[in-house]
């Protein structure tokens, strides 16, 4: 690293970027190898050593105490105190420091605001302030844009430029090519824990992407043109709040027909999760209607929605999809354990459950030591196959898959994709939500782009990626050029990997 340099660390999910940086920050201990700072080897026993060595880090999940104020969070661990051994906090000084730093780098944070009341973008700036007040020379930003809106991303890039101008070095960890090209001075690509190459930002996207994944990036899905039938899912005027009672879905209308795949694209956090949860009855809809094959299903319980012929792959499999301590067999009947042949009245039929598990394991190529193994011991891809197998094992009218291949190995991705298409071909309406634009383009027959709780446009799969990228950034052909729209070259194109 050179002073005043922005060095991008590029790699797929799980390539080892974050681990590397956690070692650099002293959170993990290296098994072997050493770290050199100014030519001298550095032993880091903990984060305090890293801070002392001038290394600061902004974690992917913010390390902020939600009920503390900005000033309290910034001073934590490096408190200015008065009164000797009693150690009274010098709040005024902390506040002043926050104000100074925030002014110097144009970060605009209020020292007295309470963290949990602040939007994510501001919280991230608090993290940056936190690092800067500790006089770091090297700032590590771990996937900083994953949770940001395009505007916030643009602001972050501006902040990064001003930090660079002030002589700070930045390590920028990401898997989004657009951002890297926009800001990095030097790029290191990591794959499976190894450096596979360095490149300059002038390298073409294809070059970088090839380095990143180690093979041709194009995910091609073999499929015939769709033959859409009658409308199965109709959503009209749907309004949903998120956990913090902030509007997440703001009047969505969409229709999915039998025998087609509707892809929903968008930067994460634009209401996709809440939209699906509302359809599934997991989250109350404040207004609007959801109709399944002519029947109004809003207000129904999740069980009733599932029973009406909806299959659902939730986006976070370890939280919502599987009971890790349960066996593969039990997870395979998690939503039909009480229906024949698996359950009758109060009693469960273990034989039927075991028999069906054996069949599913074979059909869906689930690699497990046995049907009785706890599902938590399987690899991510096989866990995901358990969910897909479960949901595709009953007759469906509608199949909703959210982030169906996140954190899944390449082999399983292809398998899951082929299953999705097969489900479409038997006449099921399919809705795929993914933040990987490639996946959406590969699978979908129509693409709905979601932005700030609304469907901002519905386009065909042959639409140029740039156009979809603009939509994801909130720029429709009509609004382009209006105030508030980001520049077309901006980070809105981030997912164009």
């Amino acid at each position, binding site marked *: 690293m050179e002073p005043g340099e922005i060095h991008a660390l590029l790699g797929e999910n799980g390539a080892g970027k974050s681990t590397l940086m956690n070692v650099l920050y002293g959170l993990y201990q290296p098994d072997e190898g050493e770290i050199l700072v100014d030519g001298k080897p550095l032993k880091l026993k903990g*984060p*305090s050593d890293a801070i002392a060595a001038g290394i600061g*880090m902004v974690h992917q999940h913010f390390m902020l*105490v939600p*009920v*503390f104020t900005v000033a309290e969070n910034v001073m*934590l*661990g490096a*408190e200015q105190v008065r009164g000797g051994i009693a*150690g009274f906090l010098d709040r005024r000084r902390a506040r002043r420091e926050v104000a100074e730093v925030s002014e110097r780098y144009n970060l605009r944070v209020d020292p007295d605001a309470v963290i949990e009341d602040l939007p994510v973008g501001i919280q991230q700036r608090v993290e940056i302030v936190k690092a800067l007040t500790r006089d770091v020379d090297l700032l590590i930003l771990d996937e900083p844009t994953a949770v940001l809106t395009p505007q916030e991303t643009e602001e972050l890039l501006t902040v990064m430029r001003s930090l660079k101008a002030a002589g700070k070095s930045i390590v920028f960890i990401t898997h989004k090519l657009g951002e890297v090209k926009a800001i990095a001075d030097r790029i290191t690509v990591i794959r499976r824990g190894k450096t596979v190459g360095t490149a300059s930002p002038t390298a073409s996207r294809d070059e970088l992407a090839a380095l990143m994944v180690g093979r041709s990036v194009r995910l091609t899905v073999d499929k015939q043109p769709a033959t859409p039938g009658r409308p199965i899912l109709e959503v009209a005027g749907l309004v949903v709040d998120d956990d913090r009672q902030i509007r997440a879905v703001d009047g969505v209308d969409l229709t999915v027909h039998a025998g087609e795949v509707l892809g929903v694209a968008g930067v994460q956090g634009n209401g996709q999760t809440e939209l699906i949860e509302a359809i599934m009855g997991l989250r109350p809809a404040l207004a609007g209607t959801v109709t399944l094959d002519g029947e109004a299903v809003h207000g129904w319980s999740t069980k009733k929605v599932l029973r009406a012929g909806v299959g659902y792959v939730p986006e976070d499999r370890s939280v919502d999809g599987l009971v890790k301590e349960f066996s593969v067999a039990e997870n395979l009947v998690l939503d039909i354990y009480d229906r024949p042949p698996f359950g009758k009245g109060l009693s469960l039929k273990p034989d039927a459950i075991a028999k069906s598990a054996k069949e599913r394991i074979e059909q869906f190529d689930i690699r497990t030591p046995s049907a009785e193994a706890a599902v938590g011991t399987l690899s991510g891809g096989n866990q995901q196959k358990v969910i897909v197998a479960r949901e595709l094992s009953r007759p469906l009218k509608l199949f909703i898959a959210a982030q169906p291949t996140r954190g899944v190995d390449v082999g399983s991705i292809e398998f899951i994709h082929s299953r999705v298409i097969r489900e479409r071909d038997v006449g099921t309406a399919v809705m795929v939500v993914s933040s990987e634009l490639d996946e959406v383009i590969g699978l979908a027959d129509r693409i709905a782009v979601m932005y700030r709780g609304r469907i901002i446009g519905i386009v065909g799969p042959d639409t140029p990626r740039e156009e979809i990228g603009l939509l994801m950034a909130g720029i429709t052909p009509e609004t382009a050029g209006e105030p508030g729209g980001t520049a077309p070259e901006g980070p809105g194109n981030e997912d164009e990997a």
Partner: protein
Amino acid sequence: MSTTAVPDVAVTGVDEGFWTRTRKTGAVLLALGVLAAVLFGALATDQQARFTLSETEGGAALEINGTIGAILFGIIAAAAGGALLAGVPKRWFGLLLGVGLVAFVLSFLCWQVSAAPEGRNFMPLVNIVRGTFILALPLIFGALAGVLCERTGVVNVAIEGQLLMGAFAGALFGSLSGNVWVGLVAAAIGGAFISLLLAVFAIRYLVDQVVMGIVLNLLAVGITGFLYERLMQTDAQKYNSAPRFGNWEIPLLKDIPLIGPALFRGNIFLYLGLLLVLVIHIALFRTRWGLRTRSVGEHPTAADTVGVKVLGLRYRNVIMAGMVAGIGGASYTLAFYSFTKNMIGGKGFIALAALIFGRWSPTGALLAALFFGFADQLATYLGAIGSSIPSQFLAMLPYLATILAVAGLVGRVRAPAADGKPYIKG
């Protein structure tokens, strides 16, 4: 019945339409006030209800006609509720709620005192206030022990055991040495012994903290009960006759009417308890130790990333908590009573209730402890004047109040976010 507006408990400002929390509280208070005015007014007699400022019937007193008092205070409570319901600025909330509740209690007392038999129809306020503080004392120490523990993220259900061990160690070593101060130190160590076990098992061996707390309570009951029967019962002279702290009168302050005799002629534990509330409150919210303690209780990973030693701080605070509770236990055996088996009798759990009711803050816990102490004292008093209210129902009050508080019917309580979760690095 929400205690104070504790600065660290953020009330999520969700727009709830017309029925805000303030309005709901107001409506409940209004109903209570009307109920008091009608019911208590009807049941009260025309006798004078006397509230004497001394320990006896004589001397200066506040007097009011029973019926008039009951109705008047009921109306005041209803008015406070009505004001809340009508919608007042937020800063008035605490005051109006306080006024309303006090008025409700006064209305109730007007009925009870005026309906008491002749010769007993007075209430000696000094006794009541002093009794309230004395009964609240173990709760204050216990709740402070809870604050120290839970603010660092370790659930302390073992308060009962810490109090008991403190009481026992104080009595035993006080008796053996014949010195109160030795007894006091031993009590602190006794409490710390239980909390050290809690710390080791919860932090080092990652045993569920609630489970560990429950088991440690039983262990404390067992060990102290066993040694009590084996040693203290056979030779009380040698093992269970600890010297006691006398009352220390504080010059000038002791002469303040009502407050003076009730508060400033007390023993060391009373002063120590109140002092500790103040010290811990300031330390928690104004010092480096406090900031780090709270950060470890809320988000240990964040604290770790800025170099705070999470586990070390937890060990230290949990052991300190045990010492505080141990001293609280000694407030029995080094001030009032000889040690008896299981003498804490559930006070540790009321202390836990006070901690929760006081929203994990020292001053909140103090107020909650005083409220519970008052309910306890009131039960004794009503028993003495032959009230028709069964004492058992007053004794239930702290527990019922806590259930209501936790259910969110009276304000919102929120524990430190990492309370009860073991911290595993990496």
